[in-house]
């Protein structure tokens, strides 16, 4: 226990208040204010992997590490689409996930937003569309914002989340 406490104290609070990475923290503060103003509460996100290679997932998971500390500013990844305001969809949509993705979107209460993450979600990426892949997320469900990159950095994903709900 003492070791654990001592490690916590020695680690301190790492959440970034000044860059680096460039502008990430400015985004974070702006985002927090926007959240309060517009939603008046936390933003709940449900992630759906619709056929991704698992690369984008690594960067989405990174958003929860102490540097980005997403929960600290009121953004939460939730376990059920029924609790979500926003779907974060990765991957080219595989034919085998098409139905599951549509059903997940149906389960999200209105109003709902969709952000397609990564080159694959934006345009099909290196996989393109074929007998097993429908290509971009927009080919299957309505998308409000895309964030390109392979994989996009956590800061880029954060910026897309901020801009999409400020705009809509």
């Amino acid at each position, binding site marked *: 226990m003492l070791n654990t406490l001592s490690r916590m104290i020695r680690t301190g609070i790492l959440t970034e208040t000044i860059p680096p990475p460039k502008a990430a923290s400015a985004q974070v503060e702006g985002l927090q204010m926007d959240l309060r103003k517009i939603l008046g509460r936390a933003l709940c996100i449900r992630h759906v992997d619709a056929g*991704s290679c698992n690369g984008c997932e690594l960067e989405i998971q990174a958003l929860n590490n102490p540097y980005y500390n997403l929960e600290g500013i009121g953004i939460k990844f939730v376990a059920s689409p029924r609790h979500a305001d926003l779907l974060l969809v990765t991957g080219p949509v595989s034919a085998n996930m098409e139905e599951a993705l549509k059903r997940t979107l149906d389960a999200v209460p209105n109003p709902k937003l969709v952000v397609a993450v990564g080159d694959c979600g934006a345009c099909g990426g290196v996989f393109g569309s074929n007998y097993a892949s429908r290509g971009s997320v927009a080919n299957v469900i309505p998308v409000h914002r895309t964030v390109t990159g392979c994989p996009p950095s956590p800061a880029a994903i954060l910026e897309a989340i901020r801009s999409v709900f400020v705009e809509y």
Partner: protein
Amino acid sequence: MNMTVDFSGLAGQELLSNLLCTYTKVGALRWHQDAEALRAAGGRLLTLWGADDRDRDGRFRIYAAYLFRDSVAVFEHPMEQGANPTYPSLAEIFPCALHMERSVHDLFGITSMEPDHRGWLRHGGWPRTVFPLRRDFDGSQQFPIDSQPYPFVQVEGDGVHEIAVGPVHAGTIEPGHFRFSVVGEKVLRLEERLGYTHKGVSKRFEEMSQMEGHRLAARLSGDSAVAFSWAYCAALEAIAQTPCPLRAASLRALALEHERLANHLGDLGALGNDAGFAFGLTQFSRMKEDLVRVNASAFGARYLFDFVVPGGVSVDLPENAPRSLLDHYLALEEGVSSLRAIYDNHAGIQDRFRDAGVLKQELAEKLGAIGLVGRASGVSMDLRVDHPYPPYDRLEPNLVTQSRGDVAARVQVRFDEISESVRLCRLLLEESASGPIRADCPFAPPGRLGLGLIEGWRGPVVVALESGPDGTIRRCHAHDPSWQNWPLLEYVIPGNIVADFPLINKSFNLSYSGHDG
């Protein structure tokens, strides 16, 4: 050079590969008989793939690669001519072959003599009569979804009920379906259904040039990008007969070890979290972020998707990188050792880790466990140790194993492999061969088959590459070790409580995308 390796009288000629690899052509009878002999000689089934060569000689072919302590043996079985030929199943001898054979059927329409004919990769995304990897199938065709219920094996009895989980999971993870049959809290049976992320990777390879294929290989499983792109390039360099320069091999290994470190750090954090110890997740995810930021400054990217390229690597380290990498390793070691002590001495965590999800060595050997999961159950096998391809031949990597086969053992293997990887990284920086980072890799002549094998963080990844005319890819089969290890989970889970499934599953941390292709 023609050399012969003898496995109980089975002769083969050399196959182009980064490891010592032999090649044997057999008929249907020997396909099965030899598999039995290979098993008796200690061989493991590494991968199985099909090919449509009807345009050449009217035949389909089925290939199997077996791994031995000192070599790899590839068997080719040209099948009888005909529209829907069959071949003897290997699943009785190597149980992990079952899912592979079902997939070969879904993609080629060639059938093993195995009674389980449920679609594995085909969920209704294309009709039953369509076989996407046949050469006369146009890959750009799309079909409306026709999803049929999947007949899971039912468990009946007083108080037995089913829990269906997935494909969309609660968390930022990949999609798959788990069907539990439970009594109270206890799991009686688990059946997996995978294939949700099947993206037609093999068909896509055939539209690409040999000089582009590494980009797709890297994205078969994004957490193993270096391993797969290296395996692809190793296969290509073998058939193009262009070895990669020494310095490039060192840099590839450095990137591969960083990939191993990043994944192990991430897993150790997630395992702590799944055992109710959020502190572990916070600490390890911070260390993982530190590492990928170091990647960004040393290799130019947080995740190294396009670092390994045909002939070498895409960028050299900046001048000051070795210094900052060495500093980073010191901090990493200090952090990991203090967290290891905390994990080891935390009664609550150890209570969850110990005796959860036990895979006994005997079962692991029987079912063909490989990679990290195998090593945690006493299966001592690591390509870097057994078949040290450059630069590992100069590094003498140490094998890490545990014998208990429970979650705790898989945690210990990760901790030990972190220490070993850091040691290897230091050696790589110290020896740092000078010279070019990339050789000019020409197109491989048509009709050559090569095999690339690399020990990724999960285990051995395999790429079998056959060249077509004018720098095209005729066939490319990429195999993730998750194929072998997914079925093990079905054996390990029964008897555990439902609430331990996420923890046990995380301790395996298998790939969905790498498996589904």
